[in-house]
């Protein structure tokens, strides 16, 4: 009885394996369960045992060849036994040629593996940007068919590159793609450091309660902390010009306008409309503008102008119960302020423990431009202003 030895499937995602080494030669006696060969896949190297006892009468796929899962690689049988003539030529994909020896000056490019595919498979692969050498062919003699390419596309969609099962694939919306690009660009290009401070914001709360009816009456909009913080931050930025700068062509350019962006969560993303010249605007104007920009953000009608020109950004995760976090700078800005929730906690006031409304402020800055103490001074300036009722009332004049 001749037993066929086939390329085993060692894992869910394995489609082919490379024969590293035959541990037996043609004609050798083998016992069932004895190590027969070593194969290598993208993930593991593994010893394969002989599926039957007898003699290794024929090696079909030599060491070095890459063979699709399930394909014949050898026969085990009795000495002198006829092997069934091989009908389907073993679908051996030649692996890349060995690299040129080191003394060669000009390295030759590796010969591309010959890929056999139908015209329809080729047309589809070309349009979809699929590398056909990665696709296992199911057609006669390993020919890659359109179905094989479709299955491959489905396969890469159904698993992550590391082979994890995917429940659902969500195509990146252009907005999400932009965010992904800008966030990674931000972290790639800047040396970002985050500092945090937890502070008593009772004065801010008090002023909001005081100003809320006035604003409501004048413009019919509920006052939130965002416009108040924008205005306060704009004021403090005036005193800390380095925070309101950008790094361009090896120069730190301090910017003469104070344009404060605020992050707004929208479906599947985040947008950052900008209040231009926030330092020069009254609280009332900022309230109206914030309200308008937030509406446009939710409706998806923000113009390019609405979201450009920011010099500093505020992002508020307080409504989600977050305390401190490490916001990522919105390039080409050099700092961003994260605002956490306001929560009543025990705090020491004048040597006594009291319950106070506390809020954590997280400031991320670009350490290439700003040093720790400069950033700390800015944060301190903001917190001092928020804690000084008179000064704050002055800054937050309604009109």
């Amino acid at each position: 009885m001749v037993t066929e030895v086939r390329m085993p499937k060692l894992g869910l995602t394995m489609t082919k394996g490379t024969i590293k080494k035959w541990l037996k030669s043609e004609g050798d006696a083998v016992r069932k369960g004895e190590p027969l060969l070593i194969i290598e896949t993208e993930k593991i190297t593994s010893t394969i045992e002989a599926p039957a006892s007898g003699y290794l009468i024929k090696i079909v796929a030599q060491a070095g060849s890459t063979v699709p899962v399930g394909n014949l690689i050898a026969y085990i049988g009795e000495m002198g036994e006829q092997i069934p003539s091989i009908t389907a030529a073993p679908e051996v994909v030649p692996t890349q040629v060995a690299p040129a020896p080191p003394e060669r000056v000009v390295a030759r490019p590796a010969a591309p593996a010959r890929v056999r595919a139908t015209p329809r498979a080729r047309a589809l692969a070309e349009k979809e940007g699929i590398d056909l050498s990665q696709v296992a062919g199911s057609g006669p003699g390993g020919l890659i068919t359109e179905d094989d390419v479709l299955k491959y596309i489905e396969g890469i969609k159904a698993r992550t590159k590391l082979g994890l099962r995917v429940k659902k694939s969500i195509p990146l919306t252009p907005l999400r793609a932009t965010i992904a690009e800008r966030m990674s660009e931000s972290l790639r290009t800047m040396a970002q450091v985050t500092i945090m401070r937890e502070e008593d914001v009772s004065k801010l709360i008090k002023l909001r309660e005081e100003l809320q009816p006035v604003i409501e009456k004048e413009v019919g909009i509920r006052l939130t902390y965002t416009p108040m913080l924008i205005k306060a931050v704009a004021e403090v930025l005036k005193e800390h010009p380095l925070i309101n700068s950008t790094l361009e062509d090896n120069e730190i350019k301090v910017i003469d306008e104070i344009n404060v962006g605020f992050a707004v969560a929208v479906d599947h993303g985040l947008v950052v409309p900008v209040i231009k010249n926030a330092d020069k605007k009254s609280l009332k104007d900022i309230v109206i503008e914030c309200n308008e920009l937030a509406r446009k953000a939710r409706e998806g009608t923000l113009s390019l102008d609405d979201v450009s020109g920011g010099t500093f950004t505020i992002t508020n995760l307080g409504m989600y119960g977050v305390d401190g976090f490490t916001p990522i700078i919105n390039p080409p800005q050099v700092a961003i302020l994260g605002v956490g929730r306001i929560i009543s906690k025990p705090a020491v006031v004048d040597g006594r423990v009291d319950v106070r409304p506390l809020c954590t402020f997280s400031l991320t800055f670009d350490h290439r431009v700003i040093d720790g103490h400069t950033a700390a001074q800015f944060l301190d300036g903001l917190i001092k202003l928020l804690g000084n009722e008179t000064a704050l009332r002055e800054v937050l004049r309604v009109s």
Partner: protein
Amino acid sequence: MSAKECDLLVIGGGPAGFWAGLVGAIKGLKTILAEEGPLGGTCLNRGCVPLAVFLNYISALRLVKKLADEGYGVSLKDLTIDAVNMFKSIKSKVVDPLSGSMRDVLENLGVEVINGRALLESGNSARVGSEVIKFKRAVVATGLRWGGINGAMPPTEFTDIDEVPSTVVVIGGNAFGLGIASAFSLLGSEVILVEDGELLSGFDKEIVDYVTLALLERGVRIFTNAKVVNIINKGDIKETHLINPEGELRISSDEVIDASTYVPRNEVFGGVSVRLKGGYVAVDEYLRTSTPNIYAAGDITGNLPYAHVAIVQGIIAGLNASGGNLRINYKAVPKYLYAYPDAFSAGLTEAEAKELGYEVAVARQSLTSNALAKASGSEGIIKIVVDAKYGGILGIHGAGVGISELINEAAILLGLESTSDAVLATFLAHPTVGEVLREALIQVTKS
């Protein structure tokens, strides 16, 4: 009594069995083929071949007549056709010699051909007459048993007629029914075709329309969505009762041929139980039955009952029984009407392609401007369904006298998954009928 031993036993010597046995012998297996009748099976002896040869001869005669009638300088005194004699001659001069040469081919390769009815007794033994045969692997290819309802003639016996009927009812709007209907229509019979669904189911709609119109023009009467409920013999006259959406109908004729009634010849499995599917022998894509060393091929597997399906199944079953590992893929099986006119539908119809969500482009071309079609008397249309996004050829369909010359081009282009641009860059020779493919595909080029 000593048993015969072999590596491969093939039961049935029709297209499927012949090819399975041939492949087994080429692959070096000791092969025995058991056939109870003449080699060639239904196709050679009582189906495709006599019908095709007959239709071809008639076409040739019609071409000669056309040359005479239309003043090509051919004169023809008296052209008469004795169909009964022609059928007899086709049997003795074409069919029987072909059957004999099939036996020669097999025997020259060392296949032992045993004449007799085989019955499987177990997973490795069978009986043929008084002989017991032990086998390692078997391919069962016993085909279908055709039987007319209520004494109607099965389509496998149409060549046995001793008189051309003046009126004939043909039941079955499939390729076989239409083939027989057009044969009798060419012989001058009044033909009534009855089908309980639509004609040529599975063919592209435009192709069906073309054929339907051509048959109607030839005077064939067609009843679709009509179910035959009874056939009553009244002396020499047969009365067919059918119900169609308009009510009940009775049609009198000299002959009724039923091309719609057949069952698989499973009785051969005797002592071996195999899984069935819809009454037919279930096989996997390697053509293995549920008993792994027994393969099945051909009409008995319940696929489209065409000789070309049987042949490919026979080849693959034979190769796999010889240690191969081939899978069958039915995606590009052409549906084939060899009749007058011919038709074929290969790959996806326009409707199927749309249903599958393809963005479809359709190329149509008529044979009227094709030089060689004029020479061979061919006419008709070709329709190609293309995936507009990638240019892949999804379906090729044709209808018209002689169009079936293109069916293999269609099968190859679809089987190898060609694209419109790949065909345009291929050197299809001129003048040929086949270059009509180029004329069609230029309309949908992607480049």
